[in-house]
């Protein structure tokens, strides 16, 4: 008998092993590239958005004489003229009309509002001399952040003069969280958008959670195996993959044109988002329900419970953590959704914070979209800052979902 064992060529083996290592490196490289992209995306947004959380103010000494400011009616005083005059007095060299205009453009148009709010809160300030911070315009603010190109030589000199004498302070821009949208970058905030998001997602959740869980229970536990059930299942799976903009068309044609719901309102937006996340919630709930072992249900049936009692008293509570996790992920999706809301008019410029479900509102992602379109450089930073807020909320939601999954996950 001859030796049938073929000794392999060492060169060939080495080549095959090299191919093996190469292939492995491709896989790792693909993952690394994806990770680098994500890291770069996040870093870019943080770097761009960080400055928007800081604002610069000029310190101005003003005296609120009792003649022009009445403690009984602090709202009536002309704070704007006061602040402007004081600021002009600070720079007597700016005498010509053009120079004065340039000088005043360093102050925000809302500069006097902080002073007014201060006096409103404490009318006893009237009659006293006090040093107040007044908000600088976006261009001046950007100059101090080192990214501004909107100030000329004279303005630079004035700003440097203020800075060298310690008359510039910087602080956290709380107004970014406290005010609504504005045409002026330094005054614009996300409170309106955040409220709108909250209202919209509340409507979406209030509708899609009960509907989705009920549908999942029916399909998983009670549905007979027939053509109609199959049709429902195919529908749900397809709806999960329908582009979100199509849901916007549905909302426009059905909710606005047919049912006559108000445009731009959180109600219509919430309805559209409810339909959008419904498949997600149904699919997640079904997975959670089917993960509960049948022995639990059989035990309940064995001691005389009806089918519904077994499901509602025993299977559903055990599936609840999974359903909750899926729901949170659905909420996260609804919170980041933009395209369908554009269709139903939630893109209007809205300064006021919405007070109800039927009032005109916008949501955070749409606010981001609107700001991203604006030409002012200062709005770029605001956009990135709004993105940071949105991402933080989404990451928190996901963290809660992961925690719930880890905490309540059961291996049967």
């Amino acid at each position, binding site marked *: 008998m001859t030796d049938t064992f073929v000794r392999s060529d060492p060169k060939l083996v080495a080549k095959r092993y090299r191919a093996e290592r190469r292939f492995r490196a491709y*896989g790792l490289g693909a993952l690394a590239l994806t990770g680098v992209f994500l890291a770069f995306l996040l870093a870019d947004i943080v770097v761009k958005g960080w400055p928007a959380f800081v604002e610069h103010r000029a310190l101005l000494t003003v005296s609120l004489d009792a003649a022009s400011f009445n403690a009984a009616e602090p709202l009536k005083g002309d704070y704007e003229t006061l602040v402007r005059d004081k600021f002009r007095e600070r720079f007597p060299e700016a005498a010509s009309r053009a120079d004065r205009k340039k000088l005043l453009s360093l102050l925000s148009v809302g500069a006097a509002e902080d002073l007014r709010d201060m006096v409103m809160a404490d009318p006893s300030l009237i009659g006293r001399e006090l040093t107040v911070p007044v908000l600088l315009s976006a261009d001046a603010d950007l100059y101090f952040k080192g990214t501004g190109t909107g100030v000329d030589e004279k303005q630079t000199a004035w700003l440097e003069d203020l800075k060298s004498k310690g008359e510039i302070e910087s602080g956290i821009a709380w107004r970014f969280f406290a005010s609504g949208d504005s045409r002026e970058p330094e005054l614009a905030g996300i409170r309106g958008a955040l409220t709108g998001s909250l209202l919209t997602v509340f409507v979406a959740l209030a509708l899609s959670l009960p509907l989705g869980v009920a*549908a999942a229970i029916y399909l998983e536990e009670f549905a007979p195996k027939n053509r109609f059930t199959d049709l429902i299942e195919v529908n749900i799976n397809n709806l999960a993959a*329908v*582009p979100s903009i*199509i849901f916007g068309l549905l909302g426009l044609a059905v909710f606005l044109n047919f049912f006559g719901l108000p445009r731009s309102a959180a109600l219509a937006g919430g309805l559209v988002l409810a339909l959008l996340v419904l498949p997600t919630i149904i699919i997640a709930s079904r997975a959670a329900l089917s993960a509960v072992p049948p022995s639990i249900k059989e035990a309940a049936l064995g001691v005389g419970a009806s089918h*519904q009692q077994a499901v509602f008293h025993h299977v559903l509570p055990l599936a609840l953590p999974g359903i909750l996790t899926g729901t949170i992920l659905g909420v996260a999706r609804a919170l980041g959704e933009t*395209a369908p809301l554009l269709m139903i008019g939630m893109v209007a410029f809205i300064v006021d914070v919405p007070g109800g479900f039927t009032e005109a509102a916008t949501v955070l992602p749409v606010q981001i979209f609107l700001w991203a379109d604006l030409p002012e450089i200062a709005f770029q930073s605001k*956009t990135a800052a709004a993105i940071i807020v949105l991402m933080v909320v989404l990451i928190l939601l*996901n963290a809660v979902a992961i925690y719930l999954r880890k905490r309540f996950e059961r291996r049967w």
Partner: protein
Amino acid sequence: MIVWTFLLAAAMTGIAFYIGLARASALRVPAGPQFHSLPAYQGLYLASGALTALAAGWLLSVLIAGQASVVVPVATVLAGAAAIAALYPRIGSSFRARNVFEKFLLVVLFACSAVAILTTAGIVFSVLFESIRFFALVSPFEFLFGTQWSPTADPPSFGILPLLAGTFLITLIAILVAGPLGLLSAIYMAEYASPRLRGVLKPVLEMLAGVPTVVLGFFAALTVAPWIRDGGEALGFSVASESALAAGLVMGMMIVPLISSLSDDIINAVPQTLRDGSYAIGATKSETIKRVVLPAALPGIASAFMLAISRAVGETMIVVMAAGLAANLSFNPLEAVTTITVQIATLLVGDQEFDSAKTLSAFALGFVLFLFTLTLNFIALRVVQRYRQQYD
């Protein structure tokens, strides 16, 4: 008004439950006959009856008297009260309240699951009706074969071909990016990564999947597009600031998690015995993957790609923010092109006139988009399903 009517209806349902509960509890005496259903079920029975009557009363009165009429809350409450009064005498020891209530609940559950069908029907009809109105104004022939898309020009022209070309171009770039990256990631995750590494990598991919598209659009428009323009100009190409390449690249990165998670599932579903057989005849791991696992997983991976294509075609925010607005029949990735979704969004943001071809054309585009993605999804989901059963 409508809010108050609903609150009133909710209160009446609660009252009905309580009346039923109290009545049954009062009837149930220790020495008396045994009850078929617990008192709570008697309450639920009465509540479900009241709820049905309330809903019917509300619907009828709205249809007859109109939504704003005072008749509506009155009629609703009267219907509820009548139902409670009519059903109240049935409560008793031999009444099978639980069975009736469970039947009611089953109908409610069924109705909830039928919402999915209603949604699909709503989409089809809303898009279809407006499209039919559009095709009454513009001939379908012009729509499908025209090479000019300028809905705001005078006279407007509605040729979909430049939009299809733009959509195709951006989708192609996206798939060229996402396909290899997603598939290789999935292979590494499924075949090579240790459980610990998987535990790190999976959240990274899930996080990328969770980034809202408006954020990616911002990144594409303000960071990636300028790079590509500057880079291209340094190499001597003239690059549009809203090049198809920038939108396509970022969209590709968006799709990586979709392809990788679907492919990961599919590769994991390939039975271990196939791999073991390959190892036994001396194949290396990568040879096994390339010659055994991937061919076995091919239909599933193909459907993952189909779902990815459908996702790319339907994606809106990235292209609205980073791609062009003007239709341009071009296959040059450095030029600005526009897509179907961009046009739908720009046509419907702002003034809408439902008698002009301009607004209606958005619905015709939506119809095309819906049909296209539906076909892809339908085939892909079918394949995935059949494929899963095969190895289960």
